[in-house]
Structure formats: C-alpha cells, structure tokens
C-alpha cells in the first residue's frame, strides 16, 4: 500500500467515524439528555419520546451503528485491498 493510499484510506475512515459518532451523540446526549424535556411533549404510544430515547431508543441505535460501521469498513478494506 502506497503512502498516498494509506492517507486516503485513513481519511475515509475518519469521515465515517465523524458521521457515526455524530449520530451516537445525537440519540443519547441530545435526544436523551439535552432536549429530553422538549421531546417529552411528543408521545409515541405509551412513551414520552425523550424518555424513550434515554431508556430504549439510544441503545437500539448504538447496536445498529456498530453493525453499519462493520459493513462500511469491510467495504473500505476491500476497496483499498487491505482486507484479510
């Protein structure tokens, strides 16, 4: 792998991290904590939305985020020929 490819690979990786971690921050810290009172005025079935994010939704999203990351990285590894 050339230096240039390595730089490009790392840059794409960091791009993925930035997006995924923003979502991670959004569902837990923003929806579950900072905006919890505002979101609680919206109801989803028996749940107040902010409360639901804090005690259910954020955790579902966490799981999905990791599996999305795995898929993205496996593809990226293939693209740069660094998969095993």
């Amino acid at each position, binding site marked *: 792998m050339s230096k240039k490819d390595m730089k490009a690979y790392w840059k794409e990786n960091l791009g993925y991290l930035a997006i995924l971690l923003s979502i991670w921050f959004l569902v837990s810290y923003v929806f579950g904590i900072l905006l919890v009172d505002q979101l*609680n005025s919206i109801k989803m079935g028996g749940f*107040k939305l902010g*409360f639901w994010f804090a005690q259910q939704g954020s*955790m579902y999203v966490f799981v999905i985020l990791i599996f999305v990351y795995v898929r993205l*990285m496996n593809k990226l590894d293939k693209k740069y020929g*660094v998969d095993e």
Partner: protein
Amino acid sequence: MGILTWTWILVGITFALYIGIAIWARAGSSKEFYVAGGGVPPIMNGMATAADWMSAASFISLAGIVSFTGYDGSVYLMGWTGGYVLLALLLAPYLRKFGKFTVPDFIGDRYYSNTARVVAVIAALIVSFTYVAGQMRGVGIVFSRYLEVDINTGVYIGMAIVLFYAVLGGMKGITYTQVAQYCVLIFAFMVPAIFISFQMTGNPIPQLGFGGAGEDGIYLLDKLDGLQQQLGFNEYTSGSKSMIDVFAITVALMVGTAGLPHVIVRFFTVPKVKDARVSAGWALLFIAILYTTVPAVAVFARTKLIETVSNAEYAELPEWFGNWEKTGLLQFDDKNGDGIVQYVADKAENELTIDRDIMVLANPEIAQLPNWVIALVGAGGLAAALSTAAGLLLVIASSISHDLFKKIIKPDISEKGELIAARLSAFVAVLIAGYFGINPPGFVAAVVALAFGLAAASFFPAILLGIFDKRMNKEGAISGMIVGLSLMFFYMAKYKLGWMGEMPPASEWWFGISPEGFGTVAMIVNFVVSLIVSRVTPAPPEEVQEIVEHIRIPSGAGEASGH
C-alpha cells in the same frame, strides 16, 4: 418441588457445566492463557464479552436502581452501552491489529517507555481490584439469599470455582465458561421478564409491554407517573438530577467502559481486525437484550409493588411480603399504628423501606411465577457475578506475570516459566479478591462506580491519542495519565469518601458534577495535559510513528512498508 431444591439443582447443573468446560478448554501456552490463543470466533467473543461485562450489579441491582430513580437511571442504561460504540469505532480494531496481550503492553510499546508501562499496570490493578472485590461479595450475597448459606461460605464456594477455571484455563477457559454463563444469565433474566410483561400488558415482549397499557386501558408509564405523584415521589419519567450531572455521569460511564482493561482485552482474542469490529457489535447486541429489558422490568416491578402494598392492610399482604421481610430487604414499621402500609416519599410518614435489589430478586414471586423460575434467577445472578470476577482476575494475573514479570523484571523467562507465573498470579489474585469479599473495606461499594471514572481519566485518552495522534509522545501520555488519575483520586477522596476532613456537601461540587461524573472532567484534563506536554517535548521516534501507521491498516500490508 420447593424453591430451595430447584435452586440447588439449577446451581449444581450450571456449576458442573462450568467445570466441565474449564477442563476441556485448559490453556497449554501463555498465548492461550492471556488471549485464548487468539482464535475465538467473533459471536462467541461477543457473548463472552457480554457476560464479562454484565456483573452481579447489572443483573441484580440495575433494574432496582432504575426503578427507584426513573429517568435518572438512564445514565446507567446509556452509559453502560454507549461505550461499546466508542470501543468498536475507536479502539478495538486498532488494538487488535497491534496484536499484543494486555493494555499495558500497548501503552508500554506505543509510548516506548517502561515508566508508561508501569503507570498503566498500576492503573489496571487499581481499577480491577476495586471492581473485583464487589463481585466476590456479590457471589456471597447471591449464595446466601438463594441457598441459605452464610455469605462467607458463599464467597469460599465462589472462590473455589473461579480458582479452578481461571488458574487452569486462563483466558481460554474463562472465555468458554463465559459463553455458557451468558446463556444462563440471559435466560434467567428474560424468562421472568416475559412472564411479567405478558401478565401486566398482554404483550410478551418486555420492550413493547413497557410502552403498553394494562387491562384498564391506561398506559403503564402514565399510571406509574400518577401513582408516584400521589405518593409524593418525583414523576417517574422526569428526573431529579441536574442536566449537567446526568450528562457528565453518562460520559464518564461510556468512556470508562471503553477504557476498562478487562473489556478491552477481550478484543485481543479474535483472529482478525475485522473480527474485533464485529465482535464488539455482537457484544453490544447481547448486552442490549438485557439492558433494554431492565427499564421495562423496573416499571413493571415498581407499579406492581405500589399497587400491592400501598394502603394495604398489613395482615392481608401476600406471603412473599413476609418472606422478604425476614431477609431484611423489606421493612415495615407501622408508625401511626393503623395496621395499614403507608408508602410515601415523606420520610417522617413513610412506613416501608424497600431494598432496591428486591426488584429483580422478588419479582418472580410477586408475579406468582413457578418455583423453577424463581430458582433460575439465583443461577443467573451467580453466572453474572462469576463471569465478571473471572475476567477481572485474568487482567490482574496478566498484569503481574506478563507486564511486570516478563516485560520488566525478568525478560528472559521461558514460555513455560511465564505460564507458571501466570497461574501463580491468578491464584494469588483469587485469594486477595476473596479476602476483600469476606472483609469488604467500607469504601468498596462506593468505589466500584468510580472504577469507571478512574478508567476514563487514565486509559481512554492514552489509548485514543496513541492511535489517532501520531505526534503523541511518552512525556505527554505519562503526564496526562498521572494528572488525570490523581485528579480523579483527589475528587473521589474529598467528595465521595470524605478522607480530607469533613465531607463537603453536594452544593460544593465543581461545576455541579458529582464524583460519579467527575471522570469526565478528569478525562478532559488528561487530554489537555497530554496534548500540551507532547507539543513542547520531542516527537516520538521514527519507528514508533511507523507502529501507528501500521495499526491503522487492518491487513498485514502495513507490515511490509515498515518493519
């Protein structure tokens, strides 16, 4: 059959299973002892990580904590799951590529310094010992509640079992017993939860029943909010902690999770970088099954409990009330002498004291589930406590035999000698942990929650910067770890343990952040100190910068470019 008989049968079967696995999976080399030979399939590693991670506290106490704190309990739910996203995205794949046995290994090599290694070993030992003492105590408590033996006898039995498979099997034995323990504990947690959810809401899936309605057509959460307010408590779905503290505690728990050595080391056991990524995903999925059920159980149990006992005639309460009164987990004190249970927020008028652990322990009885389900919860609690204790003991053992003995004191030790040293340190670690289990220092319970703050303040920044900042050098990392750790210690000693004169009130907390959340502040300070110090001291040597480039590329291709 009675509950006790069922418990002995289930505990007997599961223990025989653990021992059988340990004999089958004995470690033959030091690589097998430290990282299970590096050949654990990702799904299995995910299960083992989940069992390793979920302690007796997660299994027994968490639902109770959430149940009594409502929204505020979210810090534990988000905090103890969100860290896996950080682990999967920021740490695990790179540490796996680095390909060593322990966390101090990484710190020592990346920062080309035995001082850094020793600081990391000390931090690993502090974090792991504070954590393991609570686990051994947990084993004893579960034994005493379910099998009617003395707590200390319970600790001895637990020590003997852990000793057997940790010393014999090392990481390999521990991994495969943890897989079995995960299955036991998740089954034991889910069966009563499904029963109760169905009973209360007609929906067998607790995560959905949680937002469902009871027979009266009122949403459960609305009903509970109403009940809580009637009795003078906070509304269940809104909290009483300040927003900044909730934020800080959640960060500290997440980052602490990602920095705990016994969790990180699990990702050294899989064959490839890509396995490390996906096994973090499996681990979180397996953890989330329990963690998304916990808040549902908390609501079911709390509603049921209030409905059953509040304003009920003491003489007419169901049988389980008397049973749990005997254990001291429920205490009724008829202050106004009217023979009726007044359960209210006002301390002067409240007549009922409820231990939070009862929410999981007594739940099956309150919901009138069959005896075998009640016994199952006991076996599950033991599985949770034993699996976590074993994982921690392994970190302690490898810190001593590998990081201190092999890397610093006696580098020419033979493979066989190192394996003996590893077994010996595991043996000694079990004895020390057992000692703390039997004579728990008063501060243990308080300190366990702070183990996360310590991990967040020490390891997380050093590892993260080691991967993502090529310019980070030993001066920066060492000073960051020392300052972060000391600051956390100071805050803990002053505001949590009261070791510095009289304990200051909560109003004096810095920025309004509790000791549980202070790891966040200490972590930020660690980052700042590391970055500043590293920029005014020489860059790390060329070969170290090449290591960093090398770990960023998953395949062996990176190796060809450098060394």
